C-alpha cells in the first residue's frame, strides 16, 4: 500500500511536504520507544500516540518509512522540523490507535513481525 493511500484511508493530514508515492510494507504501533526499536522493521510505518522529538529519533534509528500520530495529537513544531531535516514523513489522524491499526490491517498492511526484513 502506498503512503498516499494510507493517508486517504486514515483521513490523515501531512505535517510537512513530503513525497507520498512510495510503498509501505508493514506497520507497528507502540507508545514505548524501546518496544518500537525491537518491533519495527525498515520500510515500516510507525503508529504512535507519543509526540516528542524522541519518536522521530527512534524512527530514524531503525529507518521507519513514516510516522502516524493517532488520536489527533499534534506534535510541536520542533518535532516536525526535526522530521523534515531527517526526511521522515509525518502524518496526523484523528482516529484512535486501535481503529487506525484495524483499518490498515484490513487493507493488507501486515504487522512488523509478520514480514521478513527487506534489504535496502
Amino acid at each position, binding site marked *: 500500500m502506498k503512503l498516499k493511500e494510507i493517508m486517504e484511508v486514515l483521513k490523515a493530514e501531512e505535517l510537512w511536504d513530503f513525497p507520498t508515492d512510495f510503498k509501505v510494507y508493514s506497520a507497528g504501533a507502540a*507508545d*514505548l*520507544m*524501546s*518496544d518500537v*526499536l*525491537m518491533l519495527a522493521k*525498515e520500510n515500516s510505518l510507525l503508529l*504512535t500516540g*507519543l509526540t*516528542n*522529538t*524522541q*519518536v522521530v*529519533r*527512534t524512527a*530514524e*534509528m*531503525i*529507518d521507519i518509512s513514516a510516522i502516524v500520530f493517532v488520536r489527533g495529537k499534534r506534535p510541536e513544531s520542533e518535532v516536525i522540523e526535526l522530521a523534515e531535516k*531527517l526526511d521522515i514523513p509525518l502524518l496526523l489522524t484523528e482516529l484512535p490507535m486501535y481503529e487506525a491499526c484495524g483499518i490498515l490491517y484490513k487493507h493488507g498492511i501486515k504487522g512488523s513481525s509478520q514480514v521478513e*526484513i527487506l*534489504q*535496502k
Partner: protein
Amino acid sequence: MKSYKSDKKYLYADRKDKNHKGKFLMSMRFDISGGNLDSAGEASSTIKSKLKQLGIGYSIIRRVAIASYETEMNIVLHANRGTLSVYVAEDHIKIIAVDEGPGIPNVELAMQEGYSTATEQIREMGFGAGMGLPNMKKCSDQFEIHSDIGKGTKVMIVIFF
C-alpha cells in the same frame, strides 16, 4: 551482581582500544550530558550515518544503531554525564558507554525485561519500559556491564560482522 563486578578484562577494554587505535577502521567518541533531552539521540544518529558511509551492511548498522541509541538514552535519562565510544575493526564493532551517575543497584534485575527504575517523567516520554538493557543485549554478540553504586556504569557491546 558479583559476577559482573569481577570482570577486570572489561574494565580495561576502553584503555586497550585507545592504545590500539591504528587497528581500527574508525573510532568515534561522544560526550553525552545527562538530562539533555534536546540533543538526546544525536550521537547515535551521527554513528549511524558514519557507518553507512563506511559501507557497512544494513543489518549490522541496525543492531549498532539500536544498541548505541539505548545506551545513549540511558546516559541521558539516568546519569549525570558520560561518553559513548564506537570502534570499528576489521571483523567487529565495539560500543563502549561509560557514565558518571547513580549506578545500578541490581544489575541482574535490570537485565530482566520489563524491570525499570525510571521516573514517571521518563515514562511519559516513552522510555523506561524496562527494555533498554535487554534490547542492548539482544543486539550484541558480546555484552558486558559493570556498575558501581554512586559512581556510574560501564557497558561494552561487541557486534561481529
